[in-house]
């Protein structure tokens, strides 16, 4: 079933690449493929189960312990579901382009590899999807972006490839240290290799943190993110923020936290500090941006900082087990919430670009008059992003900080400042965009179309649902299973 969820979009991409379809047909083919993928994941979800479920395995290179292994636990299922939903929305999002068929082919391709990354249980296949997501996003940004798109795409590709190769080295070292060469994630989680202290585990851990840190991104490896976001087409930015960034954080949990818990515990404090720096840096720099997309992009650095803080707390082996579980739950919820909220924000930004070809905030104002629906959606998303109680962001940040106060109270206290700044910057953004006087050049600004409203509503409805009734998501994630070894082994 999970294999289907990967193959359907990839097949659709192949069809779109060769079959001479019109733009509308191409769009619905890609959307339909993503929807079928989502459906397959929902079927797995309804099937329920504990631990890794819906597992299947086909050998690829048995001599090297590489195989096509798929299976999900709560965390990866939740992330895959969120990704599939975001892909449905982003491909269905109306956008005017040249060579639409190729665009939708790449979107479908990206959907397949992104979902594949979350549901695979083989480290090499994981790496394959990790790199393929770079290729897909490179072509999406380079070909359909605006401004300095090629430059941004190149920077994105080179930067993240550097990270992914570090991850590859780490993966190889982990696999070589298994009693028998294997890239099976379950085996590596059950018997973490490299348990002994020494230089090598530290270096491997560093490779993973830098590699995943570039993708997440965490300070100081975030500099590829703003140009890539600004110059990408709206739906691609939504996917970049909503899905691709999660790959970094997901990898951080899946590999260093679960496969080398002792080393993680040793380095958890520096990682937490880096997380807090990301929180503050992202928030402060975002505050200073006058470009709509840049501002949202830097809030991604801020939000992923919360996630990293949560992950660091979870792997710290300090404090009570309950606190660490809270933090990890929060980190995963933050990933989901950030995917939905920032995905919505970037789609809104894409809608603004379609109507005005402009991102410069001072050029806007008073849009609440001509575009009430856009204003409503943006306000809801912005409030969710700044962590208003009753919305998804609050649930996530509450969990993270509850956990963090139990382990690193001072760091948590500093991190709280980030929420304050984020609130200020979003309120300012809303004021600049939607209130005040409408500039003359914005006179013909049209509101969101019905289909845009419907797509945004799907995302924001979930944001509200998670905010009001998070229990279903929390029980799906099941953080207890993720750090099952008491004390993280350390």
């Amino acid at each position, binding site marked *: 079933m999970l294999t289907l969820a990967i193959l359907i979009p990839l097949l659709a991409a192949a069809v779109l690449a060769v079959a001479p379809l019109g733009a509308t047909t191409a769009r619905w083919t890609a959307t339909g493929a993503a929807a079928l993928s989502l459906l397959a994941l929902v079927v797995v979800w309804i099937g329920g189960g504990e631990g890794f479920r819906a597992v299947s395995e086909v*050998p*690829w*290179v*048995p*001599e*090297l312990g590489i195989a096509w292994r798929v299976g999900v636990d709560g965390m990866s299922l939740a992330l895959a579901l969120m990704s599939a939903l975001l892909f449905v929305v982003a491909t269905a999002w109306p956008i005017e382009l040249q060579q639409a068929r190729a665009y939708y082919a790449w979107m479908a391709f990206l959907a397949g590899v992104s979902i594949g990354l979350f549901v695979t249980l083989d480290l*090499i296949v994981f*790496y*394959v999807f990790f*790199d*393929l997501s*770079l*290729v897909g996003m*490179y*072509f999406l940004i*380079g*070909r359909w972006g605006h401004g300095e*798109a*090629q430059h941004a*795409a*190149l920077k994105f*590709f*080179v930067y993240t*490839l*550097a990270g992914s*190769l*570090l991850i*590859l*080295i780490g993966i*190889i*070292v982990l696999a*070589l240290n298994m009693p028998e060469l294997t890239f099976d994630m379950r085996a590596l989680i059950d018997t973490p290799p490299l348990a002994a202290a020494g230089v090598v585990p530290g*270096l491997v851990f560093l490779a993973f943190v830098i590699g995943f840190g570039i993708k997440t991104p965490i300070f100081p490896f975030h500099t590829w993110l703003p140009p890539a976001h600004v110059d990408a087409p709206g739906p691609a930015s939504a996917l970049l923020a909503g899905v691709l960034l999660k790959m970094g954080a997901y990898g951080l949990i899946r590999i260093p936290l679960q496969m080398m818990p002792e080393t993680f515990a040793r380095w958890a404090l520096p990682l937490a500090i880096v997380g807090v720096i990301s929180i503050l840096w992202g928030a402060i720099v975002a505050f200073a941006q006058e470009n709509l997309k840049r501002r949202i992009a830097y809030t991604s650095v801020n939000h992923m900082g919360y996630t990293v803080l949560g992950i660091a707390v979870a792997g710290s082996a300090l404090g009570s087990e309950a606190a660490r579980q809270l933090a990890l739950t929060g980190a995963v919820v933050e990933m989901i919430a950030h995917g939905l909220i920032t995905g919505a924000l970037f789609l809104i930004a894409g809608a603004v670009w379609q109507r005005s070809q402009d991102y410069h905030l001072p050029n806007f104002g008073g849009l609440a008059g001509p575009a009430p629906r856009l204003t409503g959606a943006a306000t809801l998303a912005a409030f969710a992003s700044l962590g208003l109680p009753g919305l998804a962001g609050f649930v996530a940040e509450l969990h993270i900080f509850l956990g963090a106060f139990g382990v690193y109270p001072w760091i948590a206290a500093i991190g709280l400042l980030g929420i304050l700044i984020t609130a200020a910057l979003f309120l300012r953004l809303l004021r600049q965009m939607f209130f005040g006087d409408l500039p003359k050049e914005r006179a013909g600004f049209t509101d969101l179309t019905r289909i845009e409203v419907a797509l945004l509503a799907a995302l924001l409805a979930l944001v509200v649902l998670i905010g009001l009734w998070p229990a279903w998501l929390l029980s799906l994630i099941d953080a207890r299973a993720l750090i099952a070894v008491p004390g993280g082994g350390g």
Partner: protein
Amino acid sequence: MPIGDLGPELAVLLTAIAVLLLAMVLPQHRHGWCAALAVAGLAVAAGLAHAQADVSRLTFSGTFALDGATAWGRVLIVGLTALCIGLSPRWFATDRRHGEVYAMFLFSALGAMAMAGAADLMELVVGVLLSSVTGYVLAAYHRDWAISLEAGMKYFLVGALANALLVIGVVLVVGMAGSTAYAELSGAIPEDPLALTGVALILTGLFFKMGAVPAHTWVPDVAEGAPVPAAAFLTVVPKIAGAIALYRVVALAPGIEALSLLVAIVAATTMTVGNLSALWQDDVRRLLGWSSVSQAGYALMAVAVAGRAPQALPALIAFMAVYGIANVAAFAVIARLRGRTAITDYSGLVGMHPGPVVVLTVALLSFVGIPPLAGFLGKLALFTAALEAGLGWLVIVAVANTVLSLFYYLRVVAPAVFGTPGAGAATLRGSAHVTLWLSLALLLGATIFWSPLWSALPGALLP
């Protein structure tokens, strides 16, 4: 010493002679038949090589090793030569000496096969020289084009120096160790300065064949100036043979740390020099030449850990095979575009010629090692072998170089895909077109059939 042991080599030799005779008889516009005959002869050689795949013994008084490495070397050399010949008919159609070029390809392939199978230093010298002499001719085949002549000249000068060093090295080793046969030299090379100098000189001669530092300077010139099919051939076939021969020599002295270190340093330097020089090339052929230098550097990683990691030999052969196919594919694109080489000419090419752009993109991304392309699996094997032998620093260098290489490969791909199209240009159809798609099919097939191929690779050498 049954003569049948050298069946594949003899088949290539006899075919070469037959092609030469045929070229004398046929009128020039019929010389395409020489290509057909050459490919047929290569097919026979491949069949004979396959029949000997499971044999493992020394033959001809211990001068030639029939083992897994030879079997793979033969099949790769024969197959890739056939691909390069596939690029040629239309390319050389207007050349007065069209038919003879196939004989040259075959003689050069014969030299490469002798090099790959050599189990004796003198046999190695013969192979290297035969492969070199024919290589000079192939590089300068466009006699009235200055750049081609210059390429041939540079190849010849660097080659003359390197081959002289090789022969001096052989003399030193024979003098100090008392034998030319690998079976007797194995583990018996004395650790004294003269013998070590001899081995180092032999390695230098083979570095020339592989296009590795310090004898790498011919590669970009040949890639740019030689006729495109010959450039594809010279950047692939002698390199594969050289890699196997190099591995055999390094494996003779497993205990001598200094040799491994030397090869590791050469590997690191080669990949770095190749990549840095490729960065700002504006000519795609030259860029491919420098990229070919850097790829030789990656391959040397496996030679550096020879005997210290069980996967070293399979990794080397697998990586070189994938590199060879991808390089031929890249040059096939250039042949298909009739030698169009300036990067600016590639702007917006995807609109006019989507097929070649797709093949070029796949080939270049395979060089980078983007999964799941076969280039990734080759690099994965190399990295695993190097990490297993504890050469972490070399892997870090290779990783940094890989990131660097992505930059210049994208300098070709990005304009082709994102750019605005310029004027149309002439293209070469016919067998070059078929070869293009065939090499893509081989490259993708390598990914799918990696497991059976990998388990068929030899784990160890004969002597």
